[in-house]
C-alpha cells in the first residue's frame, strides 16, 4: 500500500506540467480555470493532470464553495522531498567511505613514488 502510494506520488511529479502546477499551488490555492490560464492546453487536459495529483494525495479540492479551488497538501510534498534527500544522503555516505579509500591510495602512492608537482597521477597509463 505504502509502496503503491509512493509510486503514485513519484510518477505524479515525474511530469513537468504537473510539477509546474504543484509549484503554483505552493503559492496559494487556485481554481482549475486559474491554473489552466497560462497554458496552451484545454481545460480538460489540466483537469486530467490535477486528477493525477489528487489520486497521489498531493492535491485536494475543497467541497464547500462553487469555486472548488485546488489545494496543495504540502506535507505530502515535503515527505517526498525528504525521501529523495534521504536517498542522496545514503549516496553521500557511500562516497565519504570512497573518499577514505582514495586518501589511502594517495598515501600509498606517496610512499612508493613521490608525485611530481602538478602532474596528474596515472599509474595505469590508460588516461585519455
Amino acid at each position, binding site marked *: 500500500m505504502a509502496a503503491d502510494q509512493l509510486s503514485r506520488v513519484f510518477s505524479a511529479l515525474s511530469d513537468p506540467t504537473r510539477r509546474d502546477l504543484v509549484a503554483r499551488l505552493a503559492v496559494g490555492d487556485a481554481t482549475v480555470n486559474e491554473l489552466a490560464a497560462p497554458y496552451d492546453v484545454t481545460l480538460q487536459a489540466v483537469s486530467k493532470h490535477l486528477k493525477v495529483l489528487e489520486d497521489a494525495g498531493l492535491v*485536494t479540492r475543497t467541497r464547500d464553495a462553487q469555486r472548488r479551488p485546488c489545494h496543495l497538501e504540502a506535507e505530502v510534498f515535503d515527505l517526498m522531498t525528504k*525521501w529523495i534527500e*534521504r*536517498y*542522496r544522503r545514503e*549516496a553521500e555516505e557511500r562516497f565519504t567511505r570512497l573518499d577514505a579509500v582514495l586518501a589511502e591510495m594517495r598515501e600509498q602512492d606517496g610512499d612508493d613514488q613521490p608525485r611530481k608537482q602538478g602532474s596528474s597521477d*596515472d599509474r595505469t597509463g590508460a588516461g585519455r
Partner: protein
Amino acid sequence: MNTSTTRNQTSIELGDTVPTVTITREFDAPVAHLFRAWTEGDLVARWLGPRSQTMHIERYDCETGGAWRWWSSGEDGVEHHFYGSFHDVRPNDRLVQTFTYEGFPDSVSLETATFEDLGDGRSRVVTVSLVDSFEDRDAFVASGMEHGVVEGYEKLDELLATL
C-alpha cells in the same frame, strides 16, 4: 551541478521523460585512483555496500564482457544478493554495467558511470541508472530508505488516511 570547492557534495536528479536516477559527485583524487576504487573488487568492497552491512564479493571481473556478483549481510543475519555484467569498461573514462537485486529478479538497471579528470588531482563521476519503468525507478529510490525510515512510510500512511 555542484559548484562548491570546499566540500564534495552529492547531487541527485530524477529523469522526467525516462526512468533514470543521475548521481554526480566530485573527489579530491586523480581520476585513475577513482577508477581503480570503482573497478577493483577489494577496493569496491570497502565503500559500495550498505552501511552496517558487510559486503562479500563473489566475483568481480571488471572487463568488457565480464561479470560481478556480491552479497551483503548485516547483524540481523539477512543476506541481500546482487549480480550483473560489465558491458563496457574504458579505463578512467567510462563503465557500463547491469545491476539486478535477486529480491526483484525481473528488474535490471543499466548503470553508466562517466569519469572525468578535473585537473589538480581532482575528478568527477556521473552515474546514470536507467531502469525498466518509472515504478521500478521509484521503488529503487525508496529502497535506499528502507533502513530506519519505515516510520516515514507509516507517517505517510497516517497522513494519507486523513485526506
